[in-house]
């Protein structure tokens, strides 16, 4: 029996496999395909203070081994989440982690304060890396002072586990990671999507309504993996790794690079049962390699 438990702040997750925000709805969308109780965590779709319509259609484009999205945080607002969605999903025996967004520090605080009151919500993921909104989002995550400011503000109003989600669109991600660690983050998750673009040569127009969008999927995996490895060596709090994980091998790579837990994003679209397969693969790997606790894999990359 492999021990799959991992710890992130005050959370004990039953296994390292979570689903990435924005790619798994509120979990329910996948309930027909799998037993959600098996997941280590579900990071639900990004929330803002008020209802947001998101960006106009078209919002996606397929790319080589990846996709662009420009959803732009469409959601019904945190109040709706708390009163209508949370009651429907809170019974799942997995950690459900809201993804907190804002155009201003005040909005981040507002959303967080409300979630702080909800029993059963034990952690939030602070998204300072959304590339698809005009104001806020990634703007906070690509400058160290503003990343620190928003983390500090949210930390002040949140008593439970605070995960800060980092943007890969930066020169030095370790600087931001260290900054948010200093401000009291309990963990960092990385990476969010890469700012990218697609053009339709027939119409000579951008494919996305917003011109640019966020690139996810296996295309970005080698860059995401490098960032996880760098951040792991720069900070002491746990790292939650993601970016193009499609199978158990990819997941193990992220753990060896330094991730304590991982998130699966785009892969869910291709195989809604991929998370279960990844869990099985993690167990097989540990068995083959005589690893009794999966947490022993974290950061165990050997020297070349």
């Amino acid at each position, binding site marked *: 029996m492999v021990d799959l438990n991992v710890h992130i702040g005050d959370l004990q997750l039953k296994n390292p496999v979570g689903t990435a925000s924005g790619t798994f709805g509120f979990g329910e969308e996948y309930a027909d395909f799998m037993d959600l109780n098996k997941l280590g965590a579900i990071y639900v779709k990004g929330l803002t203070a008020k209802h947001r319509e*998101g960006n*106009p259609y*078209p919002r*996606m484009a397929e790319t080589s081994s990846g996709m662009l999205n420009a959803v732009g945080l469409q959601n019904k607002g945190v109040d709706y989440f708390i009163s209508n969605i949370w009651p429907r999903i809170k019974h799942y025996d997995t950690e459900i982690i809201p993804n907190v967004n804002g155009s201003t520090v005040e909005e981040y605080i507002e959303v967080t304060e409300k979630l702080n009151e909800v029993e059963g919500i034990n952690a939030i993921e602070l998204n300072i890396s959304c590339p698809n909104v005009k104001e806020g989002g990634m703007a906070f995550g690509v400058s160290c002072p503003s990343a620190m400011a928003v983390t500090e503000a949210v930390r002040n109003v949140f008593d439970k586990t605070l995960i800060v989600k980092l943007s890969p669109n930066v020169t030095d991600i370790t600087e931001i990671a260290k900054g948010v660690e200093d401000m009291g983050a309990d963990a960092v998750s990385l990476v969010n999507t890469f700012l990218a673009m697609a053009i339709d040569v027939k119409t000579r127009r951008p494919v996305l309504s917003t011109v640019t969008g966020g690139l996810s999927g296996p295309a970005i995996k080698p860059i995401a993996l490098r960032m996880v490895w760098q951040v792991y060596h720069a900070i002491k709090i746990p790292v939650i790794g993601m970016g193009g994980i499609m199978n158990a091998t990819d997941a193990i790579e992220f753990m060896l690079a330094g991730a304590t837990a991982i998130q699966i994003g785009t892969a869910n679209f291709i195989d*809604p049962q991929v998370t279960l397969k990844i869990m099985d693969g993690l167990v097989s790997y540990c068995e083959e390699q005589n690893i009794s606790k999966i947490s022993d894999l974290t950061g165990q990359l050997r020297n070349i």
Partner: protein
Amino acid sequence: MKQIQDFKFSGYKWLNYSTYILTLKTDESVAGLEPGNFAELQIPDAPGVFLRRPFSILDVDHKKNTLSFYIKIVGKGTRQLGKLKLGDKVSVIYPLGNSFTVNGTQKALLVGGGSGVAPFLLLGRKLKKHGVDVTFLIGARTKEDVLLTEEFEKLGKVLVTTEDGTMGQTGLVTQHSAFTDDFTFDKIYTCGPDPMMKAVARIAKEKGIDCEASLENMMACGIGACLCCVTETIHGNKRVCTEGPVFNTKELVWLI
């Protein structure tokens, strides 16, 4: 309930150089489904194709455990899907999306263009079963693109327009005399290119009757999770894969 099921390639019927009916078979039983539902197919061994591809369900055979699709080649995925070999596995997520409503309809006009006729076989059958008088109006560029008419003739009257005049009336589907002659339809169903559906919806509005359109927005997940496929409605953005693909055109914020 949505499911993910492995099917095996079972056969093609090529309708013209770029359109085929693909039949897939499973060993288990095929789930129940409604006209308008679609499926997300994972195209095996398709270089350059990353995501699944959505297709309307053309037909279902619960005895033979088969699903079939009417597919028009428009790019790499649809091309590759036309090259399957016996034994090839295709993973299918289905049934997805809502379906056409038939309640109260007495005389229906089904206006389709291109691969947009795909959902009309199941819809036509259901309408017929409900005693609805069915007329198909099919628009195409040229004769060779007017397909499935034999099937449709079993279910109702079939009218045709071609842009080059090689079959039926000449012109666009919306120019067909069915819209001007004494018009007694009480419902229009439409599926096809956006501009066609918009023109049809405009006519329905003028005539003061209901029109249901099946949209084909770009999709990533197909199951309501990613919010990529939205269309603007009078009640805000709705997911075409979940609240659609069928919308009453009165709900859509189309600049028509």
